[in-house]
């Protein structure tokens, strides 16, 4: 019987301050052996329980893509015990990783379809994983147009700035970034994600929308997608209920009869319509 509670030790090789407010760091963790890496086969949208020994564990989505071998990346906001301890860790320190957990974005179902990825704030992590996965040369041909709409309050809060700059130049992806209000030196759009989506989203025909962000953004983006003609079966979301075990046992992450950790975190809007709104 495989023990799902045991963490895999990993080495922190980079603790990078991602945003100007310094509240989000991106952590690069290295597997200690090839065997360890094989024991962690993951897909975009999955998450892991990351632990700081002595402090505890908390769930975080993988920001890296399985197409990037050798390491895992997590972008983590400093909000409590585990995240703060992680922020203070030094390169070379050991952490524990338990997973991969949860389901993933339906990369097979998306084949032959256009995909519009809509992300707000620091919820962009697993969306970055998905975009990176689809952009991989051996996968890119499987998908139609890929559009990414990504917004933050101000430019300093956007994650993965270097990568965004590269995507700007990449003909295989159509990137639209937006900030809430104008600042000097910003060449992207200004405006909230729902209205930008309304302006720039591709036709809903043969297209899936994948949406992650804070509750208000989700709330106002949904009617826009509906107006654009996206059926609920082709709107995909990822939930972030509080979790502990990640394996459907500790009882805290349920929405109706579904456990977000085990049956999610990725759901279609059609699936969520069947459940009570407790998320």
């Amino acid at each position, binding site marked *: *019987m*495989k*023990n*799902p*509670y*045991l*963490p895999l*030790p990993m080495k922190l090789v980079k603790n990078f301050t991602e945003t100007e407010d310094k509240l989000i760091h991106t952590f690069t963790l290295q597997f*200690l052996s090839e065997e360890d890496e094989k024991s962690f086969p993951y897909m975009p949208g999955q998450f892991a329980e990351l*632990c700081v*020994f*002595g*402090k*505890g*564990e*908390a769930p975080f989505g993988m920001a890296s893509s399985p197409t990037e071998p050798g390491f895992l990346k997590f972008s983590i*906001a400093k*909000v*409590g015990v585990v*995240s703060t301890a992680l922020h203070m860790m030094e390169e*070379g*320190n*050991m952490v*524990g990783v338990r997973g991969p957990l949860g389901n993933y974005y339906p990369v097979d179902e998306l084949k032959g379809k256009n995909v519009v990825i809509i992300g707000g704030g620091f919820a962009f992590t697993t969306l970055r994983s998905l975009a990176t996965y689809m952009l991989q040369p051996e996968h890119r041909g499987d998908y139609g147009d890929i559009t990414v709409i990504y917004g933050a309050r101000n430019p300093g809060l956007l994650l993965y700035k270097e990568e965004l700059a590269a995507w700007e130049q990449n003909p295989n992806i159509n990137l639209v970034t937006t900030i809430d209000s104008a600042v000097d030196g910003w060449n992207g759009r200004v405006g909230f994600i729902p209205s930008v989506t309304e302006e720039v989203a591709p036709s809903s025909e043969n297209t899936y929308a994948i949406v992650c962000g*804070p*509750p208000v953004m989700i709330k106002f983006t949904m009617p826009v997608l509906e107006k654009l003609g996206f059926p609920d079966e082709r709107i995909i979301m990822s939930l*972030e*209920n*509080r979790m*502990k*075990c990640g*394996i*459907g*046992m*500790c*009882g*805290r*992450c*349920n*929405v*109706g*009869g579904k456990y977000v950790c*085990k049956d999610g975190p990725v759901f279609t809007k059609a699936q969520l319509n069947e459940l*009570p709104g*407790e*998320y």
Partner: protein
Amino acid sequence: MIISKKDIPGFLDKLISEYQVFAPVQEGSFTLFKPISSGTNADLTAANTKLPAKEIFFPQSEKLFSYNATEEGVKVEEVLDEQKKVIFGVRPCDARSLVLLDNVFDNDKFQDPYYLTKRANTIMIGIGCNTPLSTCFCTSVNGSPFDTKGLDLLLVDIGDAYVVEVVSDKGKSLAEQAGLAAATDADKAAAAKIKETATITCQVNTDGLKEKLDTNFYWPIWDRIHEKCLGCGACTYLCPTCHCFDIVDDAKDCNGCRVRNWDSCAFPIFTLHGSGHNPRTSNKERYRQRIMHKFKYFVDNFNEIACVGCGRCINNCPVNLDIRAVLEDVRGSEARLDS
């Protein structure tokens, strides 16, 4: 088979030499399942123990593994309890609760080795309930005072002796090893008579309850039904089918262990997100969750009600919020309040 009551201590003593034996014992004003070192310690007169037998398989606090983490690496040592156990004197409702919990700890994707190892290594010897309490309602939730689900042997109290019913192969070989005598026809008849006459006086009508819960999530019933509840969590901690837990570290420097502790859906921080958002903001949502989980979600997922009718939550709620009345109320709920 049959065993005379005066032979019970000797029977238990023999088991103690081979197994870790748990039986109800008196501790202050409580009866609790404890490992016993002598057969005379078992107290078989009490009805239900204060805490359910669940505690043996899923303790209130349980060490999962210990670790030593340094710059060079991390040594993790799993802590698994593989000791062979016998639970003696468990009531049918508690035994059945474990069958329900098996669904959770051995789910469609993951197995919990701590719980499942203990389950696999344990023999369950139950005692039927000749005189159920006034708060017992097992027959309303698919149980009965002589139910054998989850048991290996069932004892039926016929006065001076227990008639022993073999339920499983494990139970059979234990009874044979103990050299129990065969029951006479008269003993068997006495046991059958007892089973017939033991009555559960308390019935909770659950007809249509599930159908109601399928539709009434947003109905006004939930605005009022939780009002008395203090959110103390006593009902969840004492319930044999509740399984919520938290996982924490207990550490000093680089040495420590990871521990899981019982938790409760009655507490506000149980579902509090890191962002400060909480999907269950008040007692209303939390109390609704308790009822929905037991009588709808568990049924949707596993086809069983997650309540065995033990009555512990009724006997121990500080404000007498009685689940039987709550269920009746829910069953009669309407989409709109009559004005």
